[in-house]
């Protein structure tokens, strides 16, 4: 194998049989992984086809999910998913961006390194543990310190509604915000790092303050990256299952207030899967999975377009 004949040119190595076999092997694995993604899509479509055929668009717009009557409308869960993840983003985007600004642009190295590490570690906590914390700690605090005083004192506020249970839209949104903030911080920092130092220095040299350099130079330059990070985080929030399942209160209704228990697509699948006794309910749950998959693929591809591979990908799986 180690001999090189004079005839072996630059590309000759690839024509040797073992090389060809190795190439085919890696290409085979590549095809397998691509095929796996395709298989996921196909199985979800096939598995939910009966439900979609039967209910049509009503599957997405129906408000009632009642297995005993074989009526399956996913609107409460779609609404729950959208409301919780958007509320979470409302908190996580500003907090995440400002955290990233502090870590990349303001903090001295000795402070930035351990803090960055800490923020990264948050992303590593298994979601079921965040859920247990949300259920056992956060919900109790929310119920006793926030919701009970508000509902007792000011009952009937718009957008609040519901009893003070602590397991509701608010708790789920807070937990989601906590979980996606590290994603936003990590990607935003990567994008900041691509802004040339000289651009900041130009602003400082003109007499600008550090904040003015960040505000007028760094943030505008990083805008598309930040939007991409936010969309990716939104996708994460929509697909998050355990932490939401354990904090949202699991009520199959279109939520009307922050203190109302609700259900997201993912939490509905997790809570009802093992109890689904009839095939038709299972098909409907697979349909929910398909809706979730479509949403998350849209988010991933949008992020890809926004960031164009610049900072994307390197950190996204860890964060």
């Amino acid at each position, binding site marked *: 194998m180690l001999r090189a004949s004079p005839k072996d040119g630059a590309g000759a190595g690839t024509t040797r049989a073992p090389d060809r076999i190795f190439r085919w092997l890696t290409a085979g694995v590549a095809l397998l992984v691509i095929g796996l993604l395709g298989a996921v899509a196909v199985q979800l479509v096939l598995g939910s086809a009966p439900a979609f055929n039967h209910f049509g668009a009503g599957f997405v717009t129906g408000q009632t999910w009642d297995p005993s009557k074989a009526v399956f409308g996913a609107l409460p869960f779609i609404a729950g998913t959208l409301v919780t993840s958007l509320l979470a983003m409302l908190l996580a985007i500003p907090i995440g961006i400002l955290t990233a600004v502090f870590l990349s642009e303001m903090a001295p190295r000795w402070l930035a390194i351990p803090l960055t590490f800490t923020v990264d570690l948050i992303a590593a906590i298994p979601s079921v543990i965040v859920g247990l914390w949300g259920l056992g700690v956060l919900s109790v605090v929310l119920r006793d310190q926030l919701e009970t005083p508000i509902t007792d004192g000011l009952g009937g506020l718009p957008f609040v509604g519901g009893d003070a249970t602590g397991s509701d839209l608010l708790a789920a949104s807070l937990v989601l915000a906590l979980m996606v903030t590290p994603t936003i911080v990590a990607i935003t920092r990567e994008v900041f790092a691509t802004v040339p130092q000289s651009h900041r220095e130009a602003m400082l040299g003109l007499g600008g303050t550090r904040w003015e350099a960040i505000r007028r130079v760094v943030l505008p330059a990083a805008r598309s990256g930040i939007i991409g990070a936010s969309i990716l985080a939104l996708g994460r929030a929509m697909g998050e299952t*355990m932490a939401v399942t354990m904090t949202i209160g699991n009520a199959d209704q279109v939520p009307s207030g922050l203190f109302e228990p609700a259900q997201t697509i993912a939490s509905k699948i997790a809570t009802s899967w093992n109890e689904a006794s009839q095939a038709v309910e299972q098909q409907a749950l697979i349909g929910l999975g398909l809706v979730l998959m479509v949403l998350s693929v849209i988010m991933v591809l949008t992020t890809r377009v926004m960031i164009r591979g610049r900072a994307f990908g390197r950190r996204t799986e860890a964060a």
Partner: protein
Amino acid sequence: MTTASSPLPAPIANDIFAWTARDRRRRLTNRLATGLCLAMCALTALSLGAILAFVVGNGLLGLDRQFFTMEATGYNQGGALAAIAGSLQIVPLATIIAAPLGILAGVYLSEQKDGRLASILRVATETMVGLPSVVIGIFVFTVLVLPFKQYSAAAGAAALAIIMVPIIARSTEEILLLVPGSVREAALALGIPVWRTTLSVVLRTALAGILTAVMLAVARAAGETAPLILTAIGNQALNVGNLTAPMDSLPTFIYFNSGQPDDLLVAQAWGASLVLLLFVLIVNIAVRGRSVGRRAV
């Protein structure tokens, strides 16, 4: 980065530059913004502390001899033995399936950088990383549980493996790109075939990095819950080696116990969280601690 305020001592600066109201306002804005960013960063970092404190505090109460030696037998009794043993089987099995596939896919990505198939694979792995794990759980259910009418540890391991493959593939690609082209060229110049160069030279050079990537994927898989609920489902009884039967795991143990109206079971959920969190954090700290200096800035 230097501060934007004057480098001169304050009294001199005040003599030379007449501070206008506008300057003062800008300086104040700068300070307020810095304070706000610091506060947000502290809030983010403290949330880790808040979770850690409760998991450690509550978890220690749930850890005793019973926790490690007994199966889950019902209310007010039993332990997490089945869950610990289950995680120790499902996760390594998933790793054995996922690591070779992920590494080879990563090799393909790095060697065929701009090929059409590589580009498709890159988008596919990106999409799979972003796919909610519960969706993977549904897929494995339809393929490995439904046809056999049996929840099983094997299905659980398959689900975790599918989650791990794209993570390992992406990090492997990244790490292989760091291997200098000259190392590869030197091997090829010696007449070593391409496949041996890839395996014995390039992969070998990047071995530490690839192990790191695999360990991070293991840590991620060890905490995955939703796909296991849909596939391996959980099992109160100890299951050692029977891959075609349901098997418990730490994450599903935490989930099912957390909702029980029983103090001991809830305490054990915290105990299991502590065990799982320790594993995940130790892996992450060990693996990332080395490279943290490079990443920060």
